[in-house]
Structure formats: structure tokens, C-alpha cells
């Protein structure tokens, strides 16, 4: 019997790949942006940065590489824009060799959208240091011991915003964006848990999220897990700082999330259809 169900059961999976490309590509091309509902966790993360006095010092380790860029770049952009709007001092660093490029992207964003932000006074790129979690452990007690110069080799003694910084306990907040180990988990284990003075918020991939939720709220204020909370963060940020929304690609997470939602609807439909096909064809010579 060669019914439509049997044809669907034998459908080449490459049609599903093509459908996925369309589900993702069409929202990107049309520019349609679906509204987002903000969750309390995202508000907590936003407030952690927003309630700090203007000009506070923020340590921003970007521990991810280009393979996670699609998921983490929008939230890193949002964090940097938010910190810059609040005129916070940003200390970029990374414990991933490939994170150097990710920091450079954020510095390019600062130069483009916040031309008044000055290197050494408003932000600094401390760059990469090898040692995995050993780096975190060391800088909680002695930052200059490991970071005696910035990424370009300029001694920290010549960088105004590094003056008087002996360890990261002096910085009121860590904003970490990470896609694996070492990353947010290690920042919680080696910095936020042993030292009550260190507060941390983070952004991470969806894959990592389920292992990090137990740290909230006692060891971590909050976390953005994947592109969905990143879009919500953009929404909260646009409400407080509407001028950001007018900039090109400032709503990147919204754009990505719209494609994500269409793809999810497609996936749910395919799962239902697949089960229906299996039910209709089982016992009739079809797949079981």
C-alpha cells in the first residue's frame, strides 16, 4: 500500500534540512521581530548591572570562541552596551585563547557606538592568560601578579583604570559570558563561592545552562541561558535606554529569537507529524 503516510515515512531527511533553512532564513530576510516577555531572572541580571553606581568597575571575562558566537555574541553585545550606557569601567579578559578575538569584537563595538569611551580610562583589554581555573584562583587574591600588562604589553602601571586594583574582590561585579569549561562554572566555584564580596552574573549557552541553575541565587545572582533570555535582556535595555534600539543590529537577539521560534514551531510540527506517520504506518508494512 503506497499511501501518503508511506511516502512521508520514506521522506528523504534532506527535505527536513531544507525546511529548517527556510524556517530560519525567511524571518532573517523579512526582518520580522516577534515580541518577548521578560522573565524575573533576566530582570535580576539587568538590575545587577543597572543598580550599580555610574562608573562602577565591571570585570567582563569573555570565555567563548567563534563556534558559540551565534548564541553568545548578541548577549555579549547587550552586556557591553548596557555597561557603556551606565559609564561603567569594563575590564575585559579571557581564559580561552580564542576569546581574544571575541574581546576585540566588543572593543570594536565600543569604538563604533561609544567613541568617547577611552582605552585605559573607561575600558581595558587584559587579554588571555593561560592556566584555566588557576587564573581565576590567582586573581581573586593578586591580580597584578598575573596581569602585569594588558593584551598589547602595556604595563598596568601605565593604565589609569588599573591603579589601585590589587585583586578582583575590589570589583563590585563580574559579568561572565562563557560557552564551556573553564567558564561560568569555574568563576562561581573559584571566585563567587569562596568570596562573599564577589558578585557574579553570567551568560551561557543553552547546553551549559542546566548544570549552572543550581548556583542561583546563593552563588550567582542570575544567568542568561541562550538566545531567548538575551532577547529579553535587549527588551529591558531598550525600555530603559530607548536610544540603543535605533542603532543597527542592536536587536540582534530579537532577530535571532524570531528565527528560533519559527524553527521551534516547525520542529514541534515535524515531531507530531513523525509520530502520526509512525502510528499510521505501523503494522501495515511501514516502519515500526
Amino acid at each position, binding site marked *: 500500500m503506497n499511501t501518503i503516510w508511506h511516502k512521508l515515512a520514506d521522506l528523504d531527511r534532506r527535505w527536513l534540512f531544507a525546511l529548517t533553512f527556510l524556517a530560519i532564513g525567511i524571518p532573517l530576510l523579512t526582518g520580522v521581530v516577534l515580541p518577548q516577555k521578560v522573565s524575573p531572572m533576566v530582570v535580576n541580571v539587568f538590575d545587577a548591572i543597572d543598580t550599580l553606581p555610574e562608573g562602577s568597575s565591571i570585570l567582563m571575562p569573555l570565555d567563548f570562541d567563534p563556534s558559540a558566537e551565534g548564541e553568545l555574541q548578541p548577549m555579549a553585545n547587550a552586556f557591553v552596551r548596557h555597561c557603556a550606557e551606565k559609564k561603567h569601567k569594563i575590564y575585559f579578559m579571557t581564559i580561552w585563547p*580564542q576569546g581574544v578575538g571575541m574581546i576585540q569584537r566588543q572593543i570594536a563595538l565600543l569604538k563604533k557606538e561609544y567613541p568617547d569611551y577611552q582605552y585605559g580610562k573607561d575600558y581595558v583589554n587584559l587579554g588571555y592568560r593561560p592556566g584555566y581555573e588557576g587564573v581565576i584562583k590567582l586573581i581573586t587574591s593578586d591580580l597584578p601578579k598575573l596581569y602585569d600588562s594588558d593584551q598589547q604589553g602595556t604595563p598596568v602601571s601605565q593604565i589609569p583604570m588599573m591603579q589601585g586594583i590589587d585583586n578582583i574582590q575590589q570589583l563590585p561585579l563580574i559579568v561572565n559570558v562563557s560557552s564551556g569549561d573553564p567558564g561560568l562554572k569555574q568563576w562561581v566555584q573559584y571566585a563567587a*563561592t*569562596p568570596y562573599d564580596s564577589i558578585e557574579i552574573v553570567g551568560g551561557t549557552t543553552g547546553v551549559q545552562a*542546566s548544570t549552572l541553575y543550581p548556583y542561583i541565587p546563593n552563588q550567582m545572582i542570575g544567568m542568561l541561558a541562550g538566545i531567548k533570555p538575551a532577547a529579553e535582556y535587549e527588551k529591558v535595555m531598550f525600555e530603559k535606554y530607548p536610544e540603543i534600539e535605533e542603532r543597527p543590529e542592536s536587536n540582534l537577539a530579537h532577530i*535571532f529569537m524570531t528565527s528560533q521560534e519559527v524553527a521551534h514551531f516547525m520542529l514541534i510540527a515535524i515531531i507530531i507529524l513523525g509520530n502520526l506517520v509512525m502510528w499510521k504506518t505501523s503494522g501495515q508494512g511501514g516502519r515500526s
Partner: protein
Amino acid sequence: MKQSTMVWIILTVIAGAYLTTRVVQYHAGAVYVAPKVMTDEESGRSVTTWSQVPDLEKDSPGVEFSFVRTLGIWVSAFFTLAVFSFLVGDNVIYKIAESIFVGASAAYAMVVGFWAAFMGIFVGRLAPQFSRNTFMPSLEPDVSPNWLMLLPLAMGIMFLWRLMPAGGWISRWPLAFFIAVFAGLRLVSHFEADFVVQIRSTLLPLIVFAADGSFNLKASLWNSTMVFGTLACLTYFFFSVEHTGVAGHISRVGIYLLMITFGVGFALTVMSRYSLLIGRMNFLLKEWLHFGGTV
């Protein structure tokens, strides 16, 4: 000729023709840059930086076509498509892209590690004068050599001793040192962050009252779920008691909760993978093919 081969040839020709049209009409993949001169007030030095401008501004004064950045976009697009080609089937283009990705990633990490760790930290501290005269001109002149750096030098040499024809056992000493250091570090941090504090976080009041003395149903339910859920999951992994009767029912709840957790984890993973695909699609459609203009 096989029918599938014919289909692929036709598709490739159509895609090539379309790409040519995009390049000619919309300058697909082309990157235009504008200079920006910044002068340091203290030193008076001027530095020119080039930043990408939208395609619409390509005829503005000072804006130039950047061959290097354009090449970067095309190489990136080629390798993205090469990796996507695996969806159709394993092929030589995919294999080449995969090998180049692995090689480039390893080489990049090695070069960054070499300059940051070996040259920046090790040589920079052991021989600051030499470093200042060669690759770290901004290093302060009054820095004296840190002779403690000879210790990691000795351990590094011991590490590499395993390549020698005799005395390979020497490499076990630095290896033992690193294992001991990381084991000690991780033992303490895991015990504190993932055990002690996690237990403390689970010790919650099951009946919660608000500040005005009224009963807080939501918080009470939340805390009860947290405590009971944790105990149920732990019961499932407690094998000293047979999982029958009350213990069996509780462990059954535990396995349901674990299944929900795995489901959430799987759904988050799907979301992650889609995000990566969306990121590349956004690159291909906007940065490469210039749909909707560039930014």
C-alpha cells in the same frame, strides 16, 4: 550520468548564476572601510584605524574597498557552505574544511599561548631587558629578572624529557606536580561550591510567611518542591534500600523529575544548536549576500 549528479550540477549552476548576479548588482561579499584618525593628547601620536561602513556609504568621501576584509568574508562563506555540505552527504570539500578548521584552531591557540605564556610571562619576566629591546617595547625599564621563572623552565625541560631515548620517567615528576595542584584546587572548590553550599541552599523553610505575617503560598510551594524534589532524586540513587513501598514511590517521583530535567537539558541543547545555525545563516544572508544591506 546519475540522476542525482545531474540535479546537483543544475543546482550548482543556478546557485553560481545567482551569486554572480548578487555580486554584480549588490556587491555581495564586498567590504568598504572608512579611516578614522585618533590622536593621543599626551604623546601627540596619531593612529589611523579602519572600520567597516554600510554598503550604502561606499561612494562617500574617504571610503575605500577593502580587499583583505572582502577576501575574509568570501573565505568564511566558502567554509560555512563547505561544512553545510555535510548535510547532503560526506564529501571531500567537507573533509577539507573540517581539517583546516581543526588545524587553524589548534595553530591559533598555540600561537596565542606562545606569545601570552611563553614570551609574555616566561621570557618577559626572566629576561625583561631582552624582552623590552625585542618584542615588548612598552615594558618598564627598571624591571629586574624574576629568577623564580627558572622553576617552570626546569619543569618544562623535565616534561619534554620523555622525547629523549632514555630517562623518560623524568617527565612523570612535573606531571605529578600538575596533577596534584589541579586535584587539590578542584577538590576544595568542588567540595565547597557543589557540596557544602548546595546542601545549605536546599535547607529551606517549607512554610513561608511574608513580612506582614501572612502565609506565602507561592514561596512555600516553591521551597517544598525544591526540598522534596532533591530528596526524591537522591532516593533514586540510594541503593542501600530496596526501591519498594514508600521508597519505591519516592524514587519513582525522583526518576520523573530527572526525566523532566533531561528533557529541559535536551530542549536547551536544541535551542543552542539552532542559535549556531541562525548565526551562520545571518552571516551568509547579510554579511555575505548583502540582503537587507550591511551594518
